């Protein structure tokens, strides 16, 4: 070590260094700001239907955005890229996981590209940040993932409909199941943002009502938790009967692998909403994920003909197993096509489009798809799944159907911890 003899007469000062580094970092951060401006315009009646996609194509949720896009394109191709007599055109924008970036991209799509409607949105924080813009501008947003509970409740607007889930849905039924089947003292670990908070209150409500007790809650840095070791030590120290967690994308791999590295897997049962061990992250988690039980509205091995056809086609197209995000993308595209057919391609009147949405029903890879009109969100079965080895490969095997569940539409079935 030791370099006390090093002399740098020609060296730059720290101030120069910070200034030059600052210019570059600042310039890249400002780039998206320079894009959007132009008159606000409604949808049109002729020409291609322009659909704006607001999805993360970078950062820890990049694969979620890619999966949704691939499956949407797959469905549009199945119907010949046409709906309601008009061709379909996609305009993709990268929201990262940043609410402010997403807001700029939304303005760019609506005001500059003059899209007829917008679809996508992965992060709950991003969805909440976009809500007022779509509400005020009466622009239709079909949400393909972000489950922020308030969007089905006190922050509901006629112009945002979800084809995915509310965060409450995959968590609430698992709380009761866990208290009855696994243990009574739970420790919760979630990322420190909207979806994490929703996870805590949804799980806690049914878990506590079934006689369980929440002995600790851990909120980790979002989007990147960095070194997970301190959190593992905290869990080991708490000695709970079970850990309930929600992580998705990159953070899911970090958390589940560290849980096994620190010898917690196998000693303290790990349960979660299904995103944490979905097919997009399972290969990277490997054996570390074995035995993790989770609730979700779909599983790769779900036995129905639409799912079999979908999973096979998706694998052929992308070379990877399908995941729940792809299913939601596929259903989002289908909902859009069904809606455009019903309004005969006329996107000038947003209220007409919204009016036909509650009636749309079809067989989805997840089973029957239908909206719950009150929560503007699907009413769907939640399956309890366990990661097991199937023919030498890890998959989520369904061990119980927890029933068809719709979001309550208010906070009556949530518990603040």
């Amino acid at each position, binding site marked *: 070590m030791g370099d006390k*003899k090093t002399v740098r007469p*020609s060296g730059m000062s*720290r101030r120069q260094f910070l200034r030059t580094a600052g210019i570059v970092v600042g310039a890249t951060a400002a780039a998206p700001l320079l894009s959007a401006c132009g008159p606000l315009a409604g949808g049109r009646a002729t020409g291609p239907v322009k659909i704006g996609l607001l999805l993360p194509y970078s950062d820890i949720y990049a694969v979620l955005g890619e999966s949704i896009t691939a499956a949407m394109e797959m469905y549009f191709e199945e119907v010949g890229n046409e709906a309601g007599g008009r061709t379909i055109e996609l305009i993709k924008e990268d929201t990262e996981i940043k609410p402010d970036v997403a807001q700029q991209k939304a303005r760019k799509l609506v005001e500059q590209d003059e899209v007829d409607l917008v679809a996508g949105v992965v992060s709950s924080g991003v969805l909440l940040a976009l809500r007022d813009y779509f509400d005020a501008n009466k622009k239709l947003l079909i949400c393909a993932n972000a489950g922020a509970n308030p969007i089905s409740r006190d922050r509901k607007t006629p112009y945002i409909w979800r084809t995915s889930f509310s965060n409450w849905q995959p968590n609430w039924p698992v709380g009761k199941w866990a208290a009855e089947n696994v243990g009574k003292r739970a420790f919760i670990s979630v990322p420190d943002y909207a979806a994490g908070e929703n996870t805590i209150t949804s799980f806690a409500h049914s878990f506590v009502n079934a006689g369980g007790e929440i002995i600790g809650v851990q*909120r980790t840095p979002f989007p990147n938790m960095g070194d997970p070791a301190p959190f593992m030590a905290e869990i080991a120290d708490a000695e709970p009967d079970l850990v309930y967690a929600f992580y998705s994308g990159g953070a899911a791999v970090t958390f589940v692998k560290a849980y096994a590295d620190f010898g917690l897997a196998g000693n303290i049962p790990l349960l979660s909403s299904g995103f944490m061990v979905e097919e997009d992250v399972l290969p990277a988690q490997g054996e570390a994920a074995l035995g993790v039980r989770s609730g979700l509205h779909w599983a790769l091995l779900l036995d129905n003909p639409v799912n079999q056809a979908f999973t096979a086609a998706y694998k052929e197209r992308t070379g990877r197993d399908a995941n729940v995000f792809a299913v939601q993308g596929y259903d989002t595209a289908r909902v859009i096509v069904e809606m455009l057919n019903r309004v005969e391609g006329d996107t000038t009147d947003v209220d007409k489009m919204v009016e036909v949405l509650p009636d749309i029903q079809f067989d989805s890879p997840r089973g029957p798809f239908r909206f719950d009109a009150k929560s503007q969100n699907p009413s769907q079965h939640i399956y309890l799944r366990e990661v097991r080895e199937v023919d030498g490969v890890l998959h989520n095997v369904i061990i119980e159907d927890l029933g068809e569940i719709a979001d309550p539409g208010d906070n009556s079935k949530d518990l603040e911890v």
Partner: protein
Amino acid sequence: METLIIQLLNGLVFSMLLFTMAAGLSLIFGQMDVINLAHGSFYLLGGYIGLTMVRRLGSFWLALVVAPLVVGALGLALEYFFLRRLYGRHRHLDQVLFTFGLALIAADLIRWNWGAYVESVPPPELLSGQIPVFTVQFPVYRLSLIAVGVTLALGLGLLLERTRIGAIIRAGVADAEMVSALGIDIHKVFAGVFALGVALAALAGVLGAPVLNLYPGLDFEILILTLVVVVVGGLGTLRGAFFGSLLIGMADTFGKAFLPEFALFLIFAVMAVVLLLRPSGLFGLEGT
């Protein structure tokens, strides 16, 4: 108390991982006066090459050797064709623009080749498993990172302080013209230092992969972390990078353990305080 000791151990592990990450950046800045904003990209590239080696040949140890060699060779080429034109006292902005542009291109190329899925690298068989430390089963691989960090620090220190090559390197940054006049090819020296610096980044990429995994975007996370370490420690001094790593590693670990809501911001707060008290960093040279 037990928790405190375990978190101290976690902090030490993360500090030493940080040092292996930051050593190359510090070396290139200290000995060449070049700010390499593509440092995180060399880290990530090293990690992914390591991943490919582990998948194809099944050997983590081989990955530890090959990834730094490949990335080091790439560094040599980049230095020869581009960076060499950008040396000099008033060219820091050029260097920053060049290396940052390189980082953006590298991010896309890496994603193009390895995809956006998170990838993980298992630790070598020899170092998998755990040792019980109080209530925690501590992973052996993480403990071994402490030894790696200390060895690397001592090795680099000896290289720079106790060898003829080290003397030439140090002389080169002090007065390149005089060194040239003594019949030493200063270009070769700088090329060698740059290659060594990026090879160290690649080595860190392989070492860090079992702990932090590999995914697009990690390159800029690593860049920011290592910049913080190097600025806190004092720009360009190896001793500074070492103690900067310790300070930031401990701040990160204890922040997560006791103030998780502020964990993201805490290391920057530590940086601000250090710079207020010691504007050149912990071991920086005054008045340059």
